Each structure stands twice: as C-alpha cells, then as structure tokens.
C-alpha cells in the first residue's frame, strides 16, 4: 500500500467506482420502476440487459458509433419489453415465471448472436473529465463521469415529475394501483402495461449498452453479474420512488466497486468475498425492508410480489 494517499485512495476509488458502476443500476431500476408502477414485475430485465449489451456492442462496432449502439440496445430492450408485456396480457400467465423464461431466453439469444463480437473492439461512450481541477491522477480517474450517468440522473428527475404531475404518470399509477379503478375510468390496463414494460425494457437495454460500451467496456458472456436482477430489489428498497433510485443505485455501485477498489491498493485477501458485497447488501436490505404482515409502503396495489 504505497503512495501518500493511503486509505484516501480506497475512498476515492470507491466514489469513482460508485459513479461508474451505478449507471447500469440506475437505468435498469428506472426501467423496472416504470414497469412495476404499472402493476407488473419484469424479472426478465437481466436477460434484456445482457441482450442490450450485446446488441449495443455489435451495432457500435459495425457502425463505428457508440451512440447508435445505445439506440439499438434501447430498441432491442423495448422489443423484449413488448414481448413480456404481451405474453403477460394473456389470462393466467404468471408475470414472474415469464420473467424467468425471458431472462434465460434473452441471455441465450445474446450469447448466440454475440459470439462473433467477443474479439472485435467497439468505440467507447464519451465521458466528461470533471476532475480537471485536481493534480492527483486517482481523483481525475474517479471523476471521469460518463455522459449516460448524467442522462440517467436527468431521467430520474423527469420520471419523478411525470409520475407526480403529468397525465401519463397518473394513468400509469392508476393502472398499477387498481385494475378495476382504471377500467372504471375508461382506461384499458393491458396496453398501458405493455407500453410501460416496453419503456422499462428500453431503459434496461441502455443499461446493458453502458456495460459493454463503457464500463467494463467489452462484450463477453459474463458481462452482467446480476445487475438486472438486483435492480428489482433496488426498486423495492427505493420504495418505487425515482429519486430514491439514484441514491440506491449509488449505494449498490459503491458496494460493487468495493472489490476492485481494494484490489487496486493491493488487498487480495478475501477478494472474491468482496465481489459478493452487492448481493449481500441487496439481500440485507430486502430482509430489513420486508415484512410478513403488512404490505410495503409505496408499493403499487396490483404488484404480485408484494401481495
């Protein structure tokens, strides 16, 4: 552990890592939030994330534009969302089970089409050096903030405003809280849920593209380590509140950055255990915030996991 920074360098690495690692969490959790606010849960976002990572990487490589890759990932994610939404609209089809099926399907089809793109190098997404004021390389590295992170922050604010004040947000909340009330208002819940799931899928696809196009910045079959699934728990922890999703995503990102940060200062003991930190944190938060007797505060009424 040489260097003048000592423990500070770990902290800086964790903060920088939190910003880097949190971006996919932020996008996937906002996507899951939109879906869940409409009354459905999509456990398939893990598969959508992986497919988005593959599609984004492939299109960025073929077109030479990272942003085209992001667009392709969003489109692919939306298609997965539509698939989930339409299948779940069939009576007696379980949204949790379909999510599991689509998770496996999305990963399978991403690995199938992704084989030729493991080797080639696609262009990276741009980032902004917010650390220009510092001479310390670690600080500069930590404050290299990707544009998508800022987009995600803005998106969280927009979604929060939309859910509170915009007509589309109110429609979404009614459908999510009570199918009967929505019907009574003359709304048709099924197509609204399909659209919400599609929007959620698109955001998850973008989260995947961030993984393959910025950090870690390559496409391989181990690109995702459960971020899509942890996002489901993250939304519960954030109490279905988009602004809380930002803090939750940063917290999860920080936990995910713990292992690499310690490794960067030469701590190798228990290295793999630190990689389990995000999962342990997720599980701990779920245990702390769940209750066997009362429904969760802020939960949409039609959501199957909280009923």
């Amino acid at each position, binding site marked *: 552990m040489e260097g003048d920074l000592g423990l500070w360098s770990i902290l800086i690495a964790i903060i920088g890592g939190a910003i880097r690692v949190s971006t996919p969490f932020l996008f996937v959790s906002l996507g899951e939030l939109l879906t869940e606010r409409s009354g459905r849960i999509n456990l398939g976002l893990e598969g959508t994330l992986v497919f988005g990572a593959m599609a984004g990487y492939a299109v960025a490589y073929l077109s030479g534009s990272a942003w085209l890759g992001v667009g392709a990932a969003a489109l692919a994610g939306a298609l997965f969302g539509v698939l989930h939404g339409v299948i779940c609209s069939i009576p007696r089809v379980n949204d949790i089970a379909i999510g599991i*099926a689509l998770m496996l399907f999305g990963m399978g089809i991403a690995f199938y089409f992704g084989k030729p793109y493991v080797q080639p190098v696609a262009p990276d997404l741009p980032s902004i050096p917010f650390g220009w004021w510092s001479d310390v390389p670690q600080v500069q590295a930590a404050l290299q903030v990707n544009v998508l992170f800022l987009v995600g922050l803005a998106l969280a604010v927009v979604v929060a405003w939309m859910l509170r004040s915009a007509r589309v947000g109110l429609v979404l909340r009614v459908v999510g809280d009570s199918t009967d009330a929505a019907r009574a208002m003359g709304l048709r819940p099924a197509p609204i849920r399909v659209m919400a799931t599609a929007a959620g899928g698109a955001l998850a696809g973008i989260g995947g593209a961030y993984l393959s196009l910025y950090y870690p910045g390559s496409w391989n079959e181990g690109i995702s380590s459960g971020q899509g699934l942890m996002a489901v728990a993250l939304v519960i922890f954030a109490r279905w509140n988009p602004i809380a999703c930002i803090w939750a995503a940063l917290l999860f990102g920080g936990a995910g950055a713990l292992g690499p940060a310690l490794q960067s200062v030469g701590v190798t003991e228990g290295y793999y255990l630190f990689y389990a930190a995000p999962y342990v944190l997720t599980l701990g938060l779920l245990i702390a915030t769940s209750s*066997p007797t009362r429904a969760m505060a802020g939960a949409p009424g039609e959501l199957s996991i909280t009923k």
Partner: protein
Amino acid sequence: MEDQALIGPAGGALLPVLARRAEPVVIPLLALLVGFAAFSLFLLTQGKSPVQFFQLVWTGGFGSAFSWQNTLSRAAPLLFAALCVALPARLGLVVIGGEGAIVLGGVAAGALGVALIGAPAVVALPVMATGAMLVGAVWIGLAGGLRHYRGVNETISSLLLAYIAIALMNHLVEGPLRDPTSLNKPSTATLPPELRVGTIPGFEVHWGLAVGVVCCVLAWVLIDRTTWGFAARIAGGNVRAAQVQGLPVGRLILGFCALAGAFAGLAGMFEVTAVLGSANGSLVAGYGYTGILIAFLARHNPLVIIPVAILLAGFQASSGLIQRRMDLPDATVLVLQGFVFIAILMSEALYGRLKPFVPEKWSR
C-alpha cells in the same frame, strides 16, 4: 348409443375422465411442439436446417448406446435441480436459486472428501453426501425461511443467494481449500479413486442417475401419497385456508425448501465425486437454470421430471455435435430452451379452454 358403451364400472363415464386426465399431458406436449416449431422458424431465419438439427439431436442424444450414456450422465444433475424447483412449487413458491445449492453442495463434498482421505469409502461417501445435502438444505431453507418469517420474495432472494454461493465457492477454491498444484484452474485437491463414485454396473452411467430417479420417486410419494404432501398442496393453494385449518405452514415451507436444497446439494456431490474429481468453477454449469425449465415442463410432478430431464439432457448431449456439424454456437441449446420455456408458460392459458378436454362443454 356409443357413449353408453363407454360408461365405466364406477358409474362415471369413462370418456370424460380420460379427457380430464389427458389435459395435463396433451397441453404440455403441444407447448413443447410449439416451442420446437418456433425454434425451427428461428433456425430457418439463420439459414440452417431444422430437420438436420433434430436429426443431430437424435444422433447425439439418443441414437446409440454411447449417446444414451452421455445423455443419462447429464440427466443426473438435472433431476436433482428440477426437484429443487418442483418441491417448493407445491407450496406456491418459485425458487430459482438451485444453482447455489448445487455449487455449495459440490464444495462441501469436495472439502469433506479431502479431509477424509484414508477413511473407507463406505464411511466417507455417506459423510460427503450428508454434508452436501446439509449445505444445500441450509441454503434453500434460508430462502424459504426468509419468505415465511420476513416476507422476502423467495424468487429474488434465492437467486441472490445463488450469486453469493458462487462468490463463496470462488473464495474457497482460490483460497483456503485450494490445492496448490491446481495452477490453471483453482480446485480443491483431487479425490483419490476410492472416493470417486463409480458407474452403475452394465450401464456406464454414474450412480447419480439411479439416486436421482429414486429421489424423484420418493418426492412423488411425499407429495402425492402422504399427509405432508397433501398439507403442502393446501398451503400452496391458499395460505390463509391452510392456517385456518391449523396446518404448520412455516414448518412445511422450511421443510420442503430444505429438502429441495438437499436434493440440489446431492447434485453437486455427484458432479464432484463422479464427474469432476474435485470442486472447482466447472460446478457453475447452469444445471440450476435448466432445472427450472424441466420442473415447469413437468408441471412440478416429480415422476414426470424423469423423462423431461432425459429429453433436455439429450439436447445438451448433442450440443457438441450440432456445433461441429452445423457451425452453430453453443448457445443454440439455450435459445431452444428459451422458446420451449415461453411456450410452456403461455400454454397455462389453455387449461379449461380446449373443448375436447372439458366434458362440461361437450353438449354445448
């Protein structure tokens, strides 16, 4: 007049009974065919021949004694993995983290085997199996307990526990349990020949298959022929009703989840003692995820799990041949499984809707 001839001895008409019995058989088979058809269309868009694909599956999975041997060896862990999903499903729980119990069961068996080198196999192997089952039981039992006592969704918690299990396995085989001579692939020490599980005489398939089949039969007896199984089905149908009846719902959930995890742990034990020879990263082979599909295809009936597991094992066994002959990536079988999984879930909507299976609708 013809209907008259089909009246059974019990006074009920035979045909309606048959029709009702046929429904849960025919609908999953239909779904399987629809899944295959969708996958065939997918292959056509890829410029590949579905006919050649299924021919190769036949050759690679079921066409010869050698391919049957390959298929049945792969079926063994799938039987246990599917039981790990099917048992909690009777209580209405969707547990998808069997992979974690398999991995930790394998590590437990590998570590106990190393500690017991020199002990006679009749002592060591049962101890290894018990250790693997205990670890698996704790792991899935934890998901069940969290569900019942804390209201934590078991689907999410079991999958998180699977990720934690894989990290634990990596930690153990790269750290405390690592055999220093395993350079390229960190592993526990290789088990001596006497601690390796052999093959069933005359079959060239390891004992895991036989034990798996026996476990499926036992699980069926438990669910279909005992009061515990009956109570579990009631609790799975309606928790409130079960509680009002005074059924010990908490103990049922814990017991069924622990048993499910114990089965998954056995899968890990057989992978280590019969196939791998030591515990290492190869334990993370996706058996837990294929097991989910098998359990859903079998409608969580342990006896039906046996043929379904063999069918899917056949697809996996033929995967290498398909890659070589058709120049398809190894993920092709995953894509096929995805199509079948979606089809089987969609088929849930058909129950009670198809006129041939619903005698009440015949006269209309």
